């Protein structure tokens, strides 16, 4: 019984982490789906979202505003605005001028952007870890104290629900709205879409903005859940999210969700039953295996090489 409860507890831990990976993974998957490049700097945009949220929360606290819904809302809005602007600016500065060149060129540009943003925040805010207030505290327990109580915190529930809402909203948006249809058209054939009168530049910008906004949401949630931010934490989270995107099939939004959850659970089971030291080995190993044996991922469509 206790072992089973332990398993479920690790499962919950894994699903929580996994759903935030999924939120970040959306940014990778949408951009890849449309212009076929890995936006290496996406992890940094997530990190900037977390920093902005923290700045907003601290600012509100200084002003004496502590009513939770207001604080959360303002932090969310600030983070989303700054991250989306960053996403937009990064695309304009580093990716648009090199679009359509040799595949390596946008990728190197993206790596450069990632290094730049990391050090930008490092220089502006210092390299120290800064504590992030846990705004949503508490939780409930199943089972009694003398066996192994299964505990689920409210923040875990919040993360899970927010992810579901964002995913559903995004899927509906892509499926129903005019911009969403244009997105799908552009991702199928950029040249053709532009011939048909779709402003492809605007659609590509929109993709970056949407991805960045979701990353900002993840930044706020994870900041509260983990408890601290530092300029380097976006990079590894970005890699994990990218792994999730590839795992689920890059270009596919439900795939990102699935990939994120699988990756989160795999990590948490590795730490739970093996050792935390090998967590990263397992996720990178998983990535390598998937790319080698099923490069299209679990839900992806095979890509036809265009000549």
């Amino acid at each position, binding site marked *: 019984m206790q072992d089973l409860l332990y398993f479920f507890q690790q499962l919950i831990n894994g699903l929580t982490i996994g759903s935030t990976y999924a939120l970040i993974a959306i940014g990778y998957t949408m951009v890849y789906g449309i212009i076929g490049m890995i936006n290496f700097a996406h992890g940094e945009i997530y990190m900037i979202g977390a920093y902005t949220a923290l700045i907003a929360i601290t600012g509100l606290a200084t002003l004496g505003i502590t009513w939770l819904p207001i604080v959360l809302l303002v932090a969310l809005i600030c983070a989303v605005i700054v991250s989306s602007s960053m996403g937009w600016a990064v695309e304009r500065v580093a990716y648009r001028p090199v679009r359509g060149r040799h595949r390596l060129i946008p990728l190197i540009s993206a790596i450069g952007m990632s290094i730049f943003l990391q050090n930008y925040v490092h220089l502006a805010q210092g390299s120290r870890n800064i504590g992030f*207030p846990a705004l949503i505290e508490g939780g409930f*327990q199943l089972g009694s104290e003398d066996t*192994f109580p299964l505990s689920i*915190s409210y923040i875990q529930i919040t993360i899970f629900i927010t992810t579901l809402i964002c995913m559903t909203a995004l899927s509906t948006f892509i499926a129903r709205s005019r911009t969403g249809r244009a997105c799908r058209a552009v991702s199928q054939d950029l040249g053709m879409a532009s011939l048909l009168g779709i402003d492809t530049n605007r659609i590509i910008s929109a993709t970056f903005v949407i991805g960045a906004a979701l990353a900002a949401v993840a930044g706020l949630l994870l900041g509260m859940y983990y408890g*601290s931010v530092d300029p380097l*934490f976006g990079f590894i989270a970005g890699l994990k999210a990218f792994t999730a995107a590839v795992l689920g099939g890059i270009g596919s939004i439900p795939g990102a969700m699935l990939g994120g959850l699988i990756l989160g659970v795999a990590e*948490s089971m590795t*730490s739970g039953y093996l050792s935390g030291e090998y967590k*990263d080995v397992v996720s990178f190993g998983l990535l390598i295996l998937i790319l080698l044996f099923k490069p299209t991922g679990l839900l992806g469509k095979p890509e036809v090489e265009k000549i």
Partner: protein
Amino acid sequence: MKMSVKKLATAVGTSVALMAAGQAAAEIKIGVAGPMTGPVAQYGDMQFAGTRMAIERINAQGGVMGEELVAVEMDDACDPKQAVTVANRMVNEGVKFVVGHLCSSSTQPASDIYYDEGILMVTPAATSPAITERGYDTVFRTIGLDSMQGPAAANYIAAQGPERVAIVHDKQQYGEGIATAVRDTLEDKGVDIAMFEGITAGDKDFSSLVTKIKQADVDYVYYGGYHPELGLILRQARQANVDATFMGPEGVGNDGITSIAGEAAEGLLVTLPPAFDQKAENQELAEAFAEKGEDPSGPFVLTSYAAVQVIADGIEMAESTDPFEVADALRSGTFETPIGTIEYDEDGDMESFEFVVYEWHADGSKTVAK
């Protein structure tokens, strides 16, 4: 083309060396190497504050054998690669006595060079036993070893009579070294070690680890490593209602832990060198620091001060600035410093170095644990 850049570098290097040589008439150079930049720069600040104060005060009292001490400060960013470059530049500058380095991983490769070149080195902060284990007769320190701090913590834990203990470390030289020492001592005392596990430094998600600790149902968790990770572990453990007592080495005992863990830091146990700045005999020194706007309470400020003083006293005692003679003097004498009376054993370690267990509070203050 290749040449011209190198030549430029050389020209700059030599001109600096020449300038230094010009004024080298009656002074003793003390090299101070530690991180001015990089992730642990805040510890480097403590080191430089301590050495600057020591050199200033010794010079004010007439210097060493009538000669002035002059600091040669260099930045190694706690990076082993830069530490080697710094060590070579110290040799260049004709430095014979070095206070440094700070991190064990950069001290070790640098000490190879100092030993080869016959330079006396006193590290005020590197605690890895490996540094003095290699029979280098010119390497000393003014800080305890992981193998002293670990047992101090383990003895405290064992005295509380716990049933089970978990040990976690960050897989870095410092953290794993102390954690291993704690484990060995506890095992000798027959305490049940429920888990001994590494984490990834820089990680943020410890929910799985916390669940594991909770299942292991331990009374004490010892963490070997630095504050960013322990802060998060504490917070996530409180969130999951883990009621074990946490304990860590001096690497976790700073403001950072309070900022990250907040309320969860209450009751954390930390082994620290005794608060030297609180000692009655150091009151005047503490005021001198306060006058300069420096904080003497950091764990490495007064050890760095003591390192300079030990070198100065050693030179006086040997009546020579030859590093080998000074090294012999250090091994034979006893020295009164702000961190207490220092006597060295054959390896260059202090005969004894006391660690005190403090209890940390949510507001960042600490009291001696009972």
